[in-house]
């Protein structure tokens, strides 16, 4: 079997394991969704009504039956309906996922634009001005949690200077400028910490690659410094940087909770928090499943990209 097929099969198995764990965990943990749905103002609901809802939702069937019918639906792409309002889970995810992805991609662009050039310069001149400055700034950036940075940004730029709105969301089609302004702040909040990570990785990788024998060969050929830097150093140094960046982007898939909360941004995480609070099984399962599939796909994409960047990978 070719190596990439093996990776794809492994990824599919992983998705199945994750889906099963989510299915079980959410049903084995105390808390009845029917009771939660029917209880109003702390009054215990009518047991008959609860039983009827159980029957309606299929929660009274054996766990194994639920499991199989559940996966049958998943296989044809049906994520079920929300217990809260009966709307299809897939539809809600489809509206919210692009917003979270936009946030993550914008943050990644900020991290790459800030982190890679500065990391390169720092790696070429260890203990030079840029290296020292970068070391201090990245240490600060890594010491400020996203929700602190986000809150402070709101305090300064929204509360005091009134440059940007404090948060919220406007679709791009409705008002492009306002849309970008609203995405910029949360993206910057995530991007700064990420830039610090990218800076450190790039610096280490560039420093390491510059000391390799093949860089000496490149110099012995009479190549100019720019050509050596871009064609030989950066090309090899990017591999670990890409891996680490992708890994962090993966954790961001579920990790934008805090930023979405601080900026009141209606992304996927907010949906998840609400769904978990309401014990909305189908919705929780749908969101977690989508996130973990994306996570696994992202890792797969990194593996494939790695093979493009490093010809030795596909040979192994």
């Amino acid at each position: 079997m070719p190596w990439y097929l093996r990776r794809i099969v492994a990824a599919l198995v992983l998705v199945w394991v994750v889906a099963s764990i989510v299915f079980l965990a959410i049903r084995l943990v105390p808390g009845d969704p029917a009771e939660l749905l029917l209880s109003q103002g702390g009054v215990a609901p009518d047991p008959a009504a609860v039983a009827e809802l159980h029957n309606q939702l299929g929660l009274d069937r054996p766990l194994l039956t639920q499991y199989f019918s559940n996966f049958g639906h998943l296989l044809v792409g049906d994520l079920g309906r929300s217990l809260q309002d009966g709307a299809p889970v897939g539809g809600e995810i489809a509206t919210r996922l692009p917003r979270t992805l936009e946030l993550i991609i914008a943050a990644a662009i900020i991290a790459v634009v800030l982190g890679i050039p500065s990391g390169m310069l720092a790696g070429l001149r260890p203990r030079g001005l840029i290296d020292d400055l970068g070391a201090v700034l990245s240490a600060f950036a890594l010491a400020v949690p996203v929700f602190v940075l986000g809150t402070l940004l709101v305090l300064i730029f929204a509360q005091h200077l009134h440059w940007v709105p404090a948060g919220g969301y406007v679709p791009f089609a409705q008002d492009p400028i306002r849309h970008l302004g609203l995405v910029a702040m949360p993206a910057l909040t995530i991007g700064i910490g990420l830039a610090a990570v990218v800076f450190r990785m790039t610096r280490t990788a560039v420093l390491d690659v510059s000391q390799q024998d093949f860089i000496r060969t490149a110099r012995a050929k009479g190549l100019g410094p720019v050509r050596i830097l871009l064609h030989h150093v950066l090309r090899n140094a990017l591999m670990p940087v890409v891996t680490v960046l992708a890994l962090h982007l993966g954790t961001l898939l579920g990790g934008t909770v805090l930023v979405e909360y601080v900026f009141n941004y209606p992304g996927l995480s907010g949906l998840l928090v609400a769904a978990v609070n309401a014990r909305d099984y189908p919705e929780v399962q749908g969101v977690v499943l989508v996130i973990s599939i994306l996570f696994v796909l992202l890792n797969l994409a990194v593996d494939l990209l790695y093979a493009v960047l490093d010809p030795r990978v596909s040979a192994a």
Partner: protein
Amino acid sequence: MRQVRRGPIVAVAVIAALALAVPILPLADPLHMDVANHLAAPSLSHPLGLDEFGRDVLSRLLWGARTSLLVAAASASLACIFGVVLGLAGGYLRGVTELLAVRSMDIVLCFPPLLLALLIVTLLGPGTGTLIPLLAVLYLPGFVRVVNAGVLSVRGRDYVEAMRALGARPTLIMARTILPNIAGPVLVQLSLAAASAIVLESGLSFLGLGVVPPAPSWGLMIGAARSTMAQAPVLLLWPCAALCMTIYAMNTLCDALRDAVDPHAEPDRLWRRREMPPQPSSPVPSGNAVLDVRNMSIEIATPLGVIHPVRDVSFSLRAGETLAIVGESGSGKSLTALALLGLLPPAAHVAKGSAWLQGHNLLRLTDERFRRVRGGVLTMIFQDPQSSLNPVHRIGAQIAEAMRAHFSVARQEAKEEVEELLTRVGFPDAKRHARAYPHQLSGGMRQRAMIAMAIANDPRLLIADEPTTALDVTIQAQVLDLLAELRKELRMGLVFITHSLPVVAEIADRVLVMYAGEVVEQGPVRELFAAPLHPYTIALLRSAPHDDGGLPEGIPGAVPSPHDMPPGCVFAPRCEVRQPACEKHPPPLVEASPGRATRCLRWRELA
């Protein structure tokens, strides 16, 4: 493990001591509300003022440190204890135990950590009781992996095998041999987990999913201050500053521990030649030499003082001639070659001398002029073709790059020339091999590719630094033949650096013998082999394998340390024929006959 930097330890210790001392400090009750005076400004009794419920901010800040550090310490320690046990068991017992203990951790890693935390907290309810085991589970895989990797690297070692052979029980073996070896990485992991736990605890508390109000916690305080941001922005500042400072201290502690466990020296500057100090300009040498090196010395600044690994080296080379530089490792032969190409390592620099090539003094060229010489008229091939070729570019592209660095060649034309070059250095299928990556070729083929790169621009001088050392014996001869053939065809000078005398006999016209940074003898290869004029050359010849099957003899003693050179002849401590005079003054290099020189006081007796 090296010494850990003091600063971060002190900082974290101060924060921890403060958190521990909170109950005995004269602080206001962190839960006492004075609603009438809520959001009161700082006063003597409340140095940082009151919060939105009229509680003392300073007191809550310090009690918050206690919560934060308690959660961090407890969860990191729990993860550490279970992780070490699982990792040890999995790594040492292997089999099913390893599958259950180590591979199962991959499942935890499938979930983004905050997503998993969110799920568990909302299912089990918030509170420190949930937080600690939850964070412990999140950090468990890190410990298991570190410990498992450590065990795998240690378990095969001789001393562990020896203990096992002596009948020690597995638990004893683990406690005695393995634990001390993995202590460093585990400590680093512990600090990383604790730092991350502080971040996650505050984040979850901020969302209302961590510590339950009214208990004091920095995350909760930030969340609460956010809602009164308009009236009292300063309230936001204190918990933010406390949290960031604590995380900063923890992060620097992590870095310090990591540096201590895994020390790595970093060079000061890369790719930068240090200018040679000014000296009287030397006249351009006349004559037909391709390369004329005079009195070249190299210095390296080391922590123990300046050393001189190459001293007063002079030699010259005619077109079409092969000069072999022979010596043990540490004789300065490779540094000599690197200096001629301006590729000395950052710490080393040429202190004096000249090296003339086609009217240029190489040792005084500017970086830009040097760039045009390197790879053009002067090229070099290195010992290890594997690491000397860029792994991510095709062979053909790497050769074409050498041409295009010096001449403007059209893409198609370069491609054809590359194929021609590859055929010339012995590639059977040049078209196909030009598209190969270095890892797809054998060692011999890689060195042929390096040679193709080196002759691409018709050099006048090629320096080969032990080009056959990394190759199989059968391939060595082929590469030597190829170099000899190309040298004749292109009429270029060839400097061949080696420690192998049989190779010298095969390829060289003249030989330069180096010892501890000095030229000790030089001369035509046949004369020098037949009648060596220096005791070191004699010993070197005796140490080579004999044709008649006689056993080679080693040279007793070792090359002197560059920090502690003998005052007289550098070879005297190992010399069989030394006299008191040899150990007093360094002997000069004397001309024994035209074209032959030796640095031995007693050369007449040796002849």
